[in-house]
């Protein structure tokens, strides 16, 4: 079975631009979460979506938004990019119920110049 997939792999943007990152969960997983991992740090929770609804939000500004589609794939949008948004953006999917361990995709490396 395919794991979590993310696109694109790498992305270079300039300050003030907008970016859209995409994620497809493991088949059968209905919950998708997004994390930001800055170099040298652990992943920071941004959003969780389940059944197309936002179920949780981390401490990120309103420039960050996301949505989940009927096929459970998800998009993360970031507006008005800042240099500090440069990071590895990780998507994770999980089953509903149980401990909720999450399975991560390879990430999208975003560089803001």
């Amino acid at each position, binding site marked *: 079975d395919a794991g979590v997939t993310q696109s694109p792999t790498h992305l270079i943007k300039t300050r003030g631009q907008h970016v859209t990152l995409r994620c497809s969960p493991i088949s059968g997983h209905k919950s998708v979460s997004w*994390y930001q991992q800055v170099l040298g740090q*652990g992943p920071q929770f941004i959003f*969780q979506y*389940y059944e197309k609804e936002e*179920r*949780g939000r981390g401490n990120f500004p309103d420039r960050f938004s996301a949505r989940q589609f009927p096929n459970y794939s998800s998009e993360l949008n970031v507006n008005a990019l800042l240099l500090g948004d440069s990071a590895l953006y990780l998507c994770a999917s999980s089953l509903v119920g149980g*401990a*909720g361990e*999450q399975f991560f995709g390879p990430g999208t490396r975003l560089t803001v110049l």
Partner: protein
Amino acid sequence: AQSVAQPEDQVNVAEGNPLTVKCTYSVSGNPYLFWYVQYPNRGLQFLLKYITGDNLVKGSYGFEAEFNKSQTSFHLKKPSALVSDSALYFCAVRAAAQTYSSASKIIFGSGTRLSIRP
């Protein structure tokens, strides 16, 4: 509030020796605890989890972790290290009381870089 502490930025071990990567946590109520490993330019790979029951949890690649409720710790261990174990390891916690009507937010530690020398 939930939090995870990994007190060692780096752990160095000779191949064949036992290894321990330390983790302590803080959470309201009972915890769900996880260990993940990250190789360069890769996403995180799930190693093992503790939900309830036996305090010693066995996971992938020969790793195990010991849950200690009184010390709020969940240290990762392996009896005999391999050079291929060299990677970045993350401990994570989630409050068991969270339901899927709310966020199953997982909080990660800052990571410990494990270096195994031949």
